[in-house]
């Protein structure tokens, strides 16, 4: 299985995501932002970073990158797409997911490990977890405060589209939301960084199942 990782000029978790994909047992494929092709990948990760410097608004310029055209098609066609941190922000800006990420309520960058709960396992990115399972994941962001209007939040909750929830909310997110999916459940956005806890050498492998899940889902389909 080939998993693509988009590389914007200011992506900085791209190498970490490629490493995690490789550790999960898939073939990592770099997708350069200025090339409008997905190189026949089976799934795409939009990694964290500061895609275009984020001087305007995180992800606001990245969504117009050439690679985003085929990526949006891929997502709308049901292809598994995961956005992590800044990648989540890019997917929001591209309207592949609803809502917005505002500045942390503490008004400063937050980098720490937080306990979270897997709420839904019926997405290609969370299938190998247990529902209600608690995992500890790193967060590192300035704008991770998930916000949407009341109607959208209600919809997300009623449709079971809150995929990951903070048990220790680091940024003021509505309903402690740490991750959501789209209606078709193939596009997932997560604020914490599963790729950073995907290697026992760093003390935790709790995030690796995110990448193994998409492999398992693909295996089931074949």
């Amino acid at each position: 299985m080939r998993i693509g990782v988009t590389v914007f000029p200011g992506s900085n978790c791209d190498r970490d995501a490629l490493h995690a994909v490789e550790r999960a047992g898939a073939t990592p494929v770099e997708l350069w932002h200025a090339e409008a092709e997905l190189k026949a990948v089976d799934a795409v990760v939009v990694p964290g970073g500061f895609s275009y410097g984020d001087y305007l608004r995180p992800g606001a310029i990245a969504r117009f990158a050439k690679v985003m055209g085929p990526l949006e098609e891929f997502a709308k066609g049901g292809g598994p797409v995961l956005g992590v941190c800044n990648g989540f922000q890019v997917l929001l800006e591209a309207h592949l997911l609803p809502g917005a990420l505002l500045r942390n309520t503490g008004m400063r960058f937050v980098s720490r490990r937080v306990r979270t709960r897997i709420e839904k396992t019926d997405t290609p990115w969370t299938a190998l977890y247990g529902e209600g399972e608690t995992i500890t994941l790193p967060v590192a962001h300035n704008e991770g405060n998930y916000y949407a209007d009341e109607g959208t939040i209600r919809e997300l909750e009623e449709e079971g589209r809150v995929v990951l929830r903070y048990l220790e909310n680091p940024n003021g997110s509505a309903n402690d939301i740490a991750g959501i999916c789209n209606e078709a459940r193939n596009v997932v956005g997560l604020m914490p960084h599963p790729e950073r806890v995907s290697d026992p050498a760093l003390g935790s492998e709790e995030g690796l199942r995110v990448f193994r899940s998409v492999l398992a889902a693909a295996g089931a389909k074949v």
Partner: protein
Amino acid sequence: MNIQETYTSLGLSDFEYDRILELMGRPPNYLELSLFSVMWSEHCGYKNSRPLLRRFPNTGPRVLQGPGENAGVIEVGEGWALAFKMESHNHPSAVEPYEGAATGVGGIIRDVIAMGARPVALLNALRFGPLDDERNRYLFREVVRGIGGYGNAIGVPTVGGEVEFSPAYSGNPLVNAMCVGLIRADEVVRAKAEAGEGNLVVLFGAKTGRDGIHGATFASDELTEESEAKRSNVQVGDPFAGKMLIECSLRLLERNLLVALQDLGAAGIASSASEMAARGGVGIELDAEKVPLREEGMEAWEVVISESQERMLAVVEPEKADEVLKVCERYELDAAVVGRVTSHGELRVFDNGEPIGSVPAEALADAPVYEREVRRPAYLDGAHRFDPDALPEPDDYNEVLLRMLAHPNLCSRASVYEQYDSEVGSDTVVRPGADAAVLRIKGTKLGFAVTADVSGRHCYLDPRGGGAAAVAEAYRNLSCVGAEPVALTDCLNFGSPEKPDGYYGLSECVDGMAEACEVLGTPVVSGNVSLFNETERGAIYPTPAVGMVGVFEDVSRHATPGFKREGDMVVHLGDYRPTLAGSDYLEIVHGKVAGKPEQPRLPREKEYADLVKSLVAEGIVDTAHDVSGGGLAVALAEMSITGGIGMTFDRVEVEPMLSGRRGDQALFGECGGHFVVAVPEERWDALQEALGGVPYDQIGRTGGDRLDVPGLLDVAVDDLRAAHERDLFEQHAPEGGHLG
């Protein structure tokens, strides 16, 4: 303005101007004078510190590159090497803290890239005035934001650092940034313009503007109220361009397209070109009009000394120039051929074909050297007159410990390091909060540890002992995590060298550091000097910052300070000779900075630290902590808080610990050279066997939820944590206070 006013305003002395006349054989024009002004500033030319720096040892079996390049390089193993350097950005941060700190980080990253290494870790060492002053709070908050703002965006983890507060730094904060880069040992790039004549000089990165003109000269002067007016001398950083610059530089090197690479720092293109030319024994001609500009109407002299950030200068073979420009385009960076290498040995600047300045590169690189007058400052005798018995003895040590743990100089640094991304890169094995940060090298079992240590107060009370103590503490910190200490970089932050007592501090401190480096076997491979750290209120403490790097053969064998299990045996290792002289306790609880701290016993420091390192490397110990600021009580409290497990001191061990000492001296006295480790009972025999002749005591056991030293201390771990976990950015009441 007459000529004397001109060179004086550029920071050059009469003596220096005469020497320029002699070297040039004619009067220099304004551009040429500007070049001398920046290249002969302390920041670039080390004119006051060069003779002192020669005292440092700088060779060793693992040293691949010592001082004189953009960064030092040491060998790790399996063909891997680490390039690292620390640099100050004190003056810019004093007037424009966010950008000053951010560009400090950007600058040190470029030094490491210039060696061909991928930056993999950042650290910083910071000093501010007390937080009860609003200006100090502002500087602290903005410096931390600036470090995070740049480091977090650029994708290099900030893994460690050091911060303290003292009135000595009010108005003159210290901002020292360190970067470590990873590189294959056989691919180290040196910033020489070799391969000589006919090669082209390519400038790539951000566009050039008017920012930071004469920044190096500004950084080599005292801070006054007028400094505020020099805000435009401070550069502005763009981490996004910085990130592009990393990736672009590494790709250019990987494709073997460059002959030499140099970052642009102080004094911009002129400085980098003249350094390259001087090192390579060649000349360089620059065409100012070819430099991509950000603003209109810039004079040619401004273009060549501008300190605009995020730029690099490369020497390229003519047939590879197009390919170089193409790679830069991929990363959306400006790039242009701005000059060529020649044989005439001069740095020559042209403006549309007209020569507008020409100076021998050697002359620029050869700043005059001053041996300053040394005089032992009078304050030392007074400060050393100190009688600990005259201090009122506290009657409640629980309260004293809680107060110390809550003090800004000893409380948790989480509110600082949680603003830094410490994990990007997926190599951070031990995150901030331990004695040293630990990182792995992917695809191997190898790893490295890195720490930044500073000893301002100690150096104020005893510059020689304090200099040695800073090196020894770094050595202990690396040993505690299980790394073999290899080499160090330093930042020497001092007052004016033109004042004999100030120069005494610098000279003594360097002697102490040099001696420690010799005995501990850790050479200095790179560094930076920041002098003239003075305000209207006087000089800062003599403040050396040490950034030391150690290596692991097997990074999975490492230790952290937190207690891991209930029932572990807690063991004190090394010499226990605590003194309150110059201690944190004395300053925090009694409001005094006085006494003569214990002299480091360097050979023993090495023996004990090496032992701790081998205990960790052999897998006997996974819990170790250096006893430093706040003494034994604070060390044990930190181990309890981090591990979430209490500890009970053995009742029969309390008496020998006191052995005639007052309780405060025993609990909070400081001396260096000792450690606390914890082992499960099944490894107790192995530990005893490994200890050999090193003095040790089994002082207690882990367990429960209290830190209990019978007769002296008994506090719940939760209360210790509540005091320690203080947010340094919250508004708070004045610090310290005195007993009574």
